[in-house]
């Protein structure tokens, strides 16, 4: 498929695919406790993910090699191996959060207990990974995820005091009911949620899956730079809904069911149903992407054959890696751990791991051997370097803040 329709489809998929369990939960928690005073972090995170997703897509399109092959090539087996272990741990933790999120979202529309949904959700993810074509998988979950626009509709229907919301966004200040350390802890969590490392592995490997060439660069750039900001707008709408309805009632979000209450209040059962479809699709899409990312990183480091474009039997070890990741995720969830807590930890540990992912991409995007004439320009490098500094600071501060605030209590 080529032409305007393909461009539109790509953008819509990027919007729907932007949100995952980490974004949903973190934005709702933050909205219910801090209003929109942390919305600036979402804006910052969106710009960052745009810049680096574009860079990793470019590397994949120009060199035909995916990110982790190059990380290994440039950092050597030891440093890349340490990076692999950290990235895999965070990716599997994120996968756990997504499968938990799928179960919680399904529970909202059924009276079936969440722990019964978890293995079913993981099995469904595996079947899609086993059988469904990459593009079909991406487009279906992306387009259905677009129904999360329901949060923006709900915010509009709630008829909030827009001036107050704008003031919170543009003149952010720590709310009197919360401490400064907790504020910054959630700032880092939001950054981790928006810039989750798996998205970069997924984006570059997805470029190889879809056989991008230099010709596809313009399309990919458009998808990223238009689609992701709209995804960011939906993130802020989720926080806005929580800020308008839950914050005044003293409700601090600690469950998926609370996230949808403002939607029900604004639009009744119909809008609620639309949004629940969106929650299920967004978490399913992200579960697929994280499971694939686990397979991608391991296979690329070890030189195995990988990719959904191959027959499963021709990328056997890649499929084994994804199955193991799914089994681990379900195993963790079946211990009875709260999926929302898992999600909150996953975004903070994502923040810790961010520099590990983003530094090598910046280095490779400047390597003329891989990139030829497509090496980064000065502006892209300046922005990339600036973000790297921010990410290093956030990464270093994440764990101390977690200890001081008792994980945002």
């Amino acid at each position: 498929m080529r032409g305007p329709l393909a461009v539109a489809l790509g953008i819509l998929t990027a919007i729907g695919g932007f949100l995952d369990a980490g974004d949903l939960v973190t934005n709702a928690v933050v909205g219910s406790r801090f209003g929109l005073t942390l919305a600036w972090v979402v804006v910052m995170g969106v710009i960052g993910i745009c810049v680096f997703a574009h860079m990793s897509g470019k590397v994949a399109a120009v060199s035909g090699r995916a990110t982790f092959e190059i990380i290994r090539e440039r950092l050597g087996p030891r440093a890349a191996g340490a990076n692999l272990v950290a990235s895999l741990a965070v990716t599997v933790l994120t996968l756990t959060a997504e499968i938990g999120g799928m179960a919680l979202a399904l529970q909202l529309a059924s009276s079936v207990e969440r722990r019964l949904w978890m293995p079913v959700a993981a099995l469904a993810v595996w079947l899609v990974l086993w059988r469904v074509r990459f593009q079909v998988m991406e487009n279906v979950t992306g387009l259905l995820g677009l129904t999360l626009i329901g949060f923006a509709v709900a915010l509009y229907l709630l008829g909030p005091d827009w001036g107050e919301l704008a003031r919170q966004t543009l003149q952010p200040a720590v709310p009197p009911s919360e401490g400064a350390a907790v504020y910054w802890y959630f700032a880092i969590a939001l950054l981790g949620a928006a810039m989750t490392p798996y998205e970069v592995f997924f984006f570059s490997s997805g470029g190889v899956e879809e056989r991008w060439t230099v010709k596809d660069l313009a399309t990919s750039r458009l998808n990223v730079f238009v689609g992701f900001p709209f995804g960011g707008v939906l993130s802020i709408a989720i926080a806005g809904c929580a800020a308008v309805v839950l914050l005044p009632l003293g409700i601090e979000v600690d469950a998926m069911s609370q996230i949808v209450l403002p939607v029900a209040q604004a639009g009744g059962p119909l809008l609620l149903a639309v949004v629940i479809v969106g929650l299920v699709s967004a978490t399913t899409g992200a579960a697929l992407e994280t499971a694939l990312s686990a397979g991608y990183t391991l296979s690329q480091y070890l030189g195995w054959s990988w990719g959904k474009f191959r027959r499963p039997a021709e990328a056997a070890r890649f499929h084994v890696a994804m199955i193991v990741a799914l089994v681990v995720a379900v195993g963790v969830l079946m211990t009875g751990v709260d999926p929302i807590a898992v999600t909150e930890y996953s975004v903070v540990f994502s923040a810790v791991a961010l520099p590990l992912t983003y530094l090598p991409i910046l280095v490779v995007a400047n390597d003329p051997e891989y990139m030829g004439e497509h090496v980064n320009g000065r502006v892209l490098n300046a922005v990339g370097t600036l973000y790297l500094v921010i990410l290093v600071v956030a990464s270093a501060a994440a764990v101390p803040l977690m200890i001081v605030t008792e994980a945002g209590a």
Partner: protein
Amino acid sequence: MSTGLLPEPDQPGRVVDAELHLLDRQVLDVDGEPVCTVDDLELGAVGDDPDIDRPLAGDTTVVVTALLSGPVLGGVVGGRPDSSRRHRIAWRYVTDIGTAVHLGAHGEQFSATWVERWLRERVFSRIPGGRHDPEADE
């Protein structure tokens, strides 16, 4: 091991930095299928039979005789990984070095892919859909 003179399969006169251009590179077979990564290199004296293992004198000009694949992090706990546990790909199969190392033969013939082949034949071919081509129209 950094700069060995390489025999030149098809690019006469090209000198390649072994560390920069060979180590940790993805190896692709004649169809572009991944085979392994280059975990180490086997060196030998110019003109020697590559299949005979002989100690090298300090001033001998060496060439790469094979790409090695196998446990790469054995050195972390001390000592070098056991060379017998590594898989050899003789240098004569190498046709090109770009952003990946290209071979002129099928990946199936190398021992480096045995786990992949074993899983393929013993496990994955027997699960329904294991041989289904995801790109084919349903």
